[in-house]
């Protein structure tokens, strides 16, 4: 029956550097598989909508700008997403990846949370038809 069983620990750590990580002043390298922010590659997308169907938090909206020659734009809601990577798993064409570096997504306003991914001309096409008829959405 010892009196202070943790004695060896506390004496040793008297001379050891505290283990507390000093984030955000020192940033440890993130592991390769960290599921950070979504990255969407519109070139390979075929518009199968499987990612949208299986997203638990319906954080992904695929807007079809032009069905025939495969032009799609993804509206990604970063605040709804739960970063489970089911969409990465579902996509057979590897259009969606999760970046391991970009994990600090706090923001003061809501606007940065709605990210539009798409080719330049698609985004432009969307904005034009948005001005033309602000009311209705393009053919989803």
């Amino acid at each position, binding site marked *: 029956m010892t009196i202070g069983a*943790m004695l060896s620990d*506390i004496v040793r750590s008297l001379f050891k550097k505290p283990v507390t990580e000093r984030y955000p002043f020192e940033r440890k390298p993130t592991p390769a598989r960290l599921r950070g922010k979504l990255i969407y590659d519109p070139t390979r997308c075929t518009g199968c909508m499987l990612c949208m169907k299986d997203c638990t938090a319906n954080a992904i909206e695929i807007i079809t700008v032009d069905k025939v020659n495969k032009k799609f734009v993804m509206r990604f809601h970063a605040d709804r997403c739960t970063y489970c990577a089911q969409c990465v798993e579902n996509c057979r064409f590897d259009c969606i990846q999760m970046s391991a570096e970009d994990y600090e997504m706090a923001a003061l306003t809501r606007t940065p949370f709605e990210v539009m991914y798409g080719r330049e001309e698609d985004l432009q096409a969307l904005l034009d038809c948005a001005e033309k008829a602000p009311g209705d959405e393009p053919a989803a």
Partner: protein
Amino acid sequence: MELSLHPIILLLFFPGGLFLFVAGLLYEWVDRKLVAQYQNRIGPRFIQPLADIIKLLAKEEIVPDGVHKGLFIALPIVGLASALAAALYVPLVGFNPSYSFNGDLIVVVYLLSVMTLCLGLAGANTADRFSLVGATRTLTQLFSYEAPFMLSLLGPAIVAGTWQISEINAFAIESRPWWFAFTQIVGFLVAMVGLMGKLEMPPFDAPEAETEIVAGALTEYSGRGLALFRLGKDVELVIGLTLIAAFFMGGLANPLDFLWKTAILILVVAALQSLFARLRIDQTVGLWWRAGALLALLQLLAIILGRYLQPVLSQFFSGLFGG
């Protein structure tokens, strides 16, 4: 060391009021930092206790209903005042105490327990369940550590032959190599553990065990009242450390002496704090009355035997060895 300053300055600025607050806050920081270091974590920055006090002073003081308003406000002030009053008789920072008379040891220990009494009353004053349980625990713990702590402090007083702290301090300085900590090792241990009991440091922090009764007697306090109680606790820490350093560690002759001796003491106290689990209140009382009081009495007995039988024994020994 003699300190000739105007009594008002003695009272308000140097070893008295303001300096004591700063020293109290500093010692609280050292204590928290050491406990953190023992637990392998960083711990607060050095002005954290000051920041806490300022924040608390800035906060609004809520007086809950079902409470005697005057008492609620007066208790922290009386507690702090008694702690500050006790500081006058203690050789702070190695200088001679500002005021001393024969028997001030009893007055100091009594003034320190007035602080704990105020804490107990503060808890009993409110209708909140947690602080009622906290108050009963504070007072039970007060009655349990008071006697052994006093007895252990009487050890050096008897050997020095006076009950005046400054003279015990002077006596301890003269018999330098023979620290009372070595000659009265048992008394020293009981005094150390008694100090931790008085300041309600773990393992004796049952009266304010946050996982059981939130903050014990201080649950209802916020703002100024809580700040004053916290300051009182810090001042008590400084006074307690100086008292034990003066008695058991060969007296405090100069500020440097005061610094390194209290530093060692706080190192040991912080280690004891982080070594143990919190004792239930019945276990603390059991420990105190069974172990504490008994050891202190044995120590006193040893001193009395040593002191009064000493002439008889030395003569006997010298007779034996043909002195």
